[in-house]
C-alpha cells in the first residue's frame, strides 16, 4: 500500500480521503497509539504522526501545547518509529509530519530507513522547501518514501510547479496564510489555491489548516482530494478517546458528503 493507493481508493468511492494528525507521544506514547487506532477505526484513511519539536513555528497554541506536553513527558525521536509501527500493525497508513531539524540531527538517510522499516509511507515537511531538500530527495528515493511538500496561497506559479515536481504521494495545500489551529470557516483562499495547483499536477491535493467539523470537511471534499485535520484531533485527544472517535466519525461522514464549491 502506497500513498497513491490511499487516494485512489478514496477516489474510487468518489470521495476525499480523511487525514488525521496527532503528535506522537501525546498525551503519552501508549495513549497516542490508542488514539491513532481509534482514528483509523473511525474512518481516517491516513494518519499524520507528528514529531514533537521544541520550536514549532508553523503551529498555533493547541499543537504547541501538545508538543510541549509530549516532550516534557520524555518523548524521544526513537519513540516516533514505535508509534508508526503501531499504526501499521493496526492496519493503518501513516506519514510523519516533522520539522526538519530533528531529521537532520538523526541523519536524513537513517531517519528515512527507520521510518520505512516501521511501515511509514512518507514525510510531510512544513519547514523544508524543495530548494533545500537534496538529501531528502536522495534518502526518500533510496528507501521508497513519499515526499509531501507544502504549497501556500502566497506561492507563485513557478514555485507551485517546482514543488509539485519534487513531491510524490500528495501535495499539502495550506488553506490559509497562518499557523495550525481550528477555525470556524473554511478559507476562501483554499479552492482558489487548489485550482491553481491542478494546473500544474495530477498529484492528489490535501487541504489543511483550520478544519474541525464534518461540515467543513464536506466543503473541502468538494474541491480537494484529501481533508487534513490536526488541531481539532489534538483537542479531542485532550478530552477522551471517545471524543477522538466521534470527531473522526463526523469528519468521515463529511468527506463522503462533498458539497460542490460555490
Amino acid at each position, binding site marked *: 500500500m502506497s500513498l497513491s493507493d490511499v487516494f485512489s481508493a478514496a477516489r474510487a468511492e468518489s470521495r476525499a480521503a480523511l487525514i488525521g494528525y496527532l503528535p506522537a507521544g501525546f498525551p503519552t506514547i501508549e495513549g497516542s497509539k490508542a488514539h491513532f487506532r481509534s482514528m483509523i477505526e473511525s474512518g481516517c484513511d491516513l494518519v499524520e504522526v507528528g514529531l514533537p519539536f521544541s520550536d514549532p513555528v508553523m503551529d498555533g497554541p493547541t499543537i504547541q501545547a501538545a508538543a510541549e506536553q509530549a516532550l516534557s513527558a520524555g518523548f524521544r525521536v526513537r519513540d516516533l518509529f514505535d508509534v508508526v509501527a503501531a499504526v501499521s500493525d493496526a492496519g493503518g497508513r501513516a506519514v510523519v509530519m516533522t520539522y526538519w*531539524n530533528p531529521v537532520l540531527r538523526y541523519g536524513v538517510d537513517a531517519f528515512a530507513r527507520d521510518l520505512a522499516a516501521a511501515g511509514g509511507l512518507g514525510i510531510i515537511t512544513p519547514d523544508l522547501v524543495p530548494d533545500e531538500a537534496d538529501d531528502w530527495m536522495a534518502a526518500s528515493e533510496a528507501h521508497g518514501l513519499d515526499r509531501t511538500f507544502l504549497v501556500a496561497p502566497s*506561492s507563485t506559479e513557478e514555485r507551485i510547479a517546482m514543488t509539485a515536481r519534487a513531491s510524490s504521494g500528495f501535495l499539502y495545500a495550506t488553506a490559509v496564510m497562518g499557523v495550525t489551529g481550528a477555525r470556524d470557516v473554511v478559507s476562501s483562499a483554499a479552492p482558489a489555491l487548489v485550482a491553481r495547483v491542478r494546473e500544474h499536477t495530477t498529484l492528489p491535493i490535501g487541504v489543511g489548516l483550520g478544519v474541525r467539523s464534518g461540515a467543513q470537511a464536506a466543503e473541502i471534499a468538494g474541491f480537494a482530494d484529501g481533508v487534513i485535520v490536526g488541531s481539532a484531533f489534538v483537542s479531542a485527544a485532550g478530552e477522551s478517546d471517545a471524543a477522538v472517535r466521534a470527531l473522526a466519525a463526523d469528519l468521515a461522514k463529511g468527506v463522503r458528503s462533498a458539497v460542490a464549491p460555490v
Partner: protein
Amino acid sequence: MGQFTPTPHDPDARGHFGPWGGRFVPEALIAAVDELAAEYDKARLDPEFVNEFKRLLRDFAGRPSLLTEAPKFAEHAGTRVWLKREDLNHTGSHKINNVLGQALLTKRMGKQRVIAETGAGQHGVATATACALLGLDCVVYMGEVDTERQALNVARMRLLGAEVIPVKSGSRTLKDAINEALRDWVANVDETHYLLGTAAGPHPFPLMVRDFHRIIGIEAREQILEKAGRLPDAVVACVGGGSNAIGIFHGFIDDADVRLVGVEPGGSGLDSGSHGATLTAGTPGSLHGAMSYVMQDDDGQITEAHSISAGLDYPGVGPEHSHLKDIGRAEYFPVTDAEAMEAFALLSRTEGIIPAIESSHALAGALKLGPSLGPDGLLVVNLSGRGDKDMDTAVKYFGLADGGQA
C-alpha cells in the same frame, strides 16, 4: 569600498555561505523573503536609498561613532586597546544601524506594519524608534522572562508607540519571541515586514543585516589607521546572534593578518551546561530559517541558552559565523558570566564607560587575549552597547544597593 558593495564573501543566490544559511522556512514565507531579497538587491545599488540611509546614520543615529583608546583598561589587558563606541549611537547600541536600513526598506516595499523580536530589548527599542521616526506601526515580541528582567526597555518601547507582546510559550526568552514573530509574519505577511534583529534567519537576512552593520568595520578600519597608524592584531566582538561581530569583522576580513575574534556567552561555564556558546559547543542544525551551529540535544530539540546577558541568550548564531569558523577565518571562544561582569566593572572604573553586559563579554575576551600580544599589540574591541539597561542586573550582581562595590 562602500558599505553595500558586493564582496567575495557574499552567499550564493539562495543565501548559502558554504553549507550554512539558506532558507529553512515554510513555503508560505518564501514569497516574502523573495520579495525582500529582490528589494534589497535593488536598494543596495540605488544611490537614493544608500544616501537616505547614510543621512539617517549621520543625522539621526549620530555616526560615525568614535574610536576611543582605553589606556587604563589596557593595563589590565597587557596590550593596547581601542574601543569602537557603538554605545554612543542613538538608542545606545549598534542595533540602530540595521533597523534604520530595514525600516527604510519597509517603506520602499509599501508595507506599513513592522514586527520584531527582542531579547534584552535593545533591538526592540531601536525598532520602535525607527518606526516612530518613519511613521510605521510596530509590534515587538519579547519573551515574558525578558520583559521582567528588562522592564525599563518595555516602558521605552511603549513610550515610542510600539505594542509589546510578552511571549509565554517555550522557554519564554529570545528564541520563543522569534518563533512568535515568525507565526505573526506567516499570518500577516502581505502588509507586514519582519524586522529581524540579528544576522541570522533565512536569506536575505544574514546578508542584509550584515551589510547594514558593515559601517562599523569600515569606520573602525579608517579610524585605527588614522589614530594608531596601523591595523590591529585582532578585532574582538561579542557573539549572540552575531550582528555586531559580523559588522565589524567585515571591515577587516580581507586583512589576512588581522585576527577576527568572537566571544561567546559562557554562562556558568561550558561544563555546567548552562551557557549560550553556540559556536564553541553547538552542532550543525536548522533553527529560525537557516543552517548554522545550534544548541540542541541528541534528538535535535533546541536547548535553552543561559547567559547573564539577555542579548546573548540565544541557542543559534548567524550562518556566516559558522562559515567563518569552519574556514578558520574567525575564531570563537567563551567567557563566563563572572568574567564578563568583572570586565563590566573594570571598564566602568578605569575608563568612565559603563558597557552593556553583552559588550562586556568582548572586553573580557580582550583581557584574555591581550597578554599573548604584549605591550606592542593592538586590539580593537567592539563596544556594541551601553550598560544603562543593565543596571538592575549590576545592582543585584554586585549588591550595589547595599553599599556594595563592584
